[in-house]
Structure formats: C-alpha cells, structure tokens
C-alpha cells in the first residue's frame, strides 16, 4: 500500500520547481530510500551474525545472509537510480563524486563477502567465518559511507557547501511522500527477505528429514 502511494504520489503530485533538478527530483522517492533500506538491511544482517556467533544456531546464519543479500540488491538499485539521476543533473553517470565511489567500494566489500561464502565448503565453518567477516566489515562500511564523504567536497546535498535537502526543497508535500517511501521500500525488503528465509528454512528441514 505504502509503495502504491509512493509510486502514484511520486509521479503525479506537485513538486517544487528547482533549477537543474526539475522533474528529476521525483527520483528522491526512489534513490534515497534505497540507501536507507540498504543500511537497515546490512545492520540487521550484522545483528544476526552476532547472534549466530553467540548461539551457533543455523537459523541466525540464514537470516543474516538473506538480509545481506537484500542489502546488496538495494545497494545495486541505489547505485543505478543514482547514476540515472546523475546523468541528468550532473551531466554524467559517473562524476567521481566521493559518495558514489564510497558506495561502489561498499558494494565490493559485500561481493567479497559472497565470494568468501561460496569458497568455503564446510557448513559450520562457512557460517562462522562469514559472520566474522560481516561484523568486521561493517564498521569500515560505516566509515566509508558516513565519515569519509563528510570530510571532502561532494556533489551530493549537505556537503561541500551544498545545502542539505531539508534546507530548501524538501517541502511538506514532498515529506508526505518521502517518509512513507522510506518505510515502504524498507518493508518491501523485509518482506522479500522473510520469504527467502522461510524458503531456506524449509529446504533445511526437508534435508533433515531426508
């Protein structure tokens, strides 16, 4: 429901006219929630990794991996929507912006996580080691996304002399769609993940029975 609201409202309602951005500001409802969603998913994944290490229960391992997977999907979508937006407003899909680079490196970290998982055969070892890497990489990701870009100039709002969105253009009408959009996309991610977790759990139980 929230997503329907976002998509319909996002495409049809009034938006403030701004120079350069023009209609592309509607991408705010899609691009920004992706990053919110990604951070929430990856954070949850780390939480389950910690729980796996303290309990050695495979259910937590499955949960942590599926949340990481959804986080990666959100990350890729975030980069793609960002590139489309950048192509129209900054003139090129990749303009060496520190946040773009940081996001790309962040994705590399998580692709490495997947490769690491696939290269381990023993189930218990795989679960434990990927949990350790997951916890180990998360602080680095946080530094990458929230601390480093703040220290240099960025084309993104809120850095290098550009005012944040709050300052001028996130007027109340846009807020009414933006916040439900964040919640909606995140819930979609959670729903998707829970489906995958249930499938994985079922597979595990059928394997046990056989």
């Amino acid at each position, binding site marked *: 429901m929230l997503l329907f609201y976002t998509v319909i409202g996002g495409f049809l309602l009034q938006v403030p006219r701004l120079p350069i951005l023009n209609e592309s500001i509607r991408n705010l409802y899609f691009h920004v929630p992706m990053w919110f969603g990604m951070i929430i998913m990856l954070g949850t994944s780390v939480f389950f990794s910690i729980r796996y*290490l303290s309990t050695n229960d495979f259910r937590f391992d499955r949960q942590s991996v599926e949340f990481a997977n959804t986080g990666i999907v959100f990350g890729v979508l975030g980069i793609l929507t960002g590139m489309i937006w950048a192509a129209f407003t900054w003139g090129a899909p990749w303009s060496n912006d520190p946040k773009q680079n940081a996001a790309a490196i962040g994705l590399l970290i998580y692709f*490495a996580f997947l490769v690491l998982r696939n290269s381990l055969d023993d189930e218990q*070892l795989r679960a*434990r*080691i990927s949990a350790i890497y997951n916890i*180990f*990489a998360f*602080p*680095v990701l946080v530094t990458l996304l929230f601390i480093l870009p703040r*220290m240099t100039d960025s084309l993104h709002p809120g850095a290098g002399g550009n005012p944040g969105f709050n300052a001028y253009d996130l007027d109340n009408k846009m807020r009414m769609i933006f916040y439900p959009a964040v919640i909606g996309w995140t819930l979609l991610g959670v729903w998707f993940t829970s489906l995958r977790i249930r499938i994985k759990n079922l597979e595990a139980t059928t394997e046990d029975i056989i």
Partner: protein
Amino acid sequence: MIANEIKILLLKEIKLEWRQKFALNGIVLYLASTIFTVYLSVNVKIGVLAPQTWNALFWIIILFTAVNAMAKSFILENSGRMLYYYSISRPQSFILAKIIYNGGLMILLSSLGYLIFAIILNNPVKDILLFFLNVSLASIAFATTLTMISAIAAKANNSHTLMTILSLPVIIPILLMVIRISGNAIAGMARSASSGDLLTLAALIVMIGTAAYILFPYLWRS
C-alpha cells in the same frame, strides 16, 4: 598475565622470522623490485614525477607489499603448529602479538620503501616528521586489518586470491585517508590541516583492533 604472554609470543615471532630469513628477504626483494619496475616504467628523469603521482605510486606499492607480507602470517603457518599455540596461549594474546609484530614489520618495510623511493625517484616530501607519523599509523592500520583478514582467508581453500579480494575493499578507506595526509605532508601544508584525518585514522585503528580482539576467539576455535 596477558602482557606476559604477548611478550613471549612476540619474541617467538621474531626468532622464527630470523631463522627463516628467506620469507623476510623475499618480501624486501619484492618491495625493491616493484619500486624499480615502477621507476623503469614511468621512465622519468629525476625530479619530473609529479608529487601526486609519487604519492599514489608509493602507497599502492606499500599496500601490495603489506598484503603479501601479512598473508604469510596465517596462511603459511602449518596447522600442527597452530594447534600447539592453541593449547598453550589465549587467542586474544595470540592475535595481539601477531598484530604488534606485523605492525613493527610494516613500519620497517615502509620506511625501507620510502628510503628506496627517495633514492631512485627523488624525494618531494617537505614535512618529514608528519610523513613519518603518517607512515607509522598507516603501517599499524594495515597490519591490524590485514592480520585479521589473513586469519579469515587462511580458513578457506584458495586463500591467496581470497586474501586480495577480501582485503582491498576493506583497506580502501584507510588508504584514502593515508594518501590525503601524506599529500599534505608532501605539500608541506600546516599540520592543523591533517590533524582531523590523523585522529580519524587513529580512531579507525582502535575500532578495527577492538573488532579483531573480540572476533578472533571465534575464528580460532576450528
């Protein structure tokens, strides 16, 4: 107690390294020959290489030397000896000893790298003290991260490839900060310009070190 164990393990590492000099010599030779390859490929007359290029090349070479040097700290250990360590010492003191040892080794290696660089490819650094502070911090940061990653990679099958792909993205934020600070040192800017970055780097080392300290016991059990 834990300090005592660390001291013993540290001495053991140094003795072991001294007995098997081929590993150390290998890594020093690796450093020297990479720098020489770079020198021949850029093909510059002395003094022509731009400071930014110098900076980037220097840190990339140090990074790859670090990856190679740290990889051996777990991957080359045989499993029988690991079992022996497991029975005589605590995992926390083991990882701390490894990190301290690797940190020292990295400081030596990167100072040596700087020396060779300065001789062959001239020396644009204006603020030597800041540069050395940066080199030491960077060495410790590399050692902390890479020791832990090498411990993780050692558990997997094709550990050398894995070591590279796991460590590079994790190390990039550190590398970016280090390159920025050393850029300041090369340009001879006021020290206050770099203090924020230096503090962030130190905080990052503490954070990664703590994560390694807490997580290593779980890794150790298998």
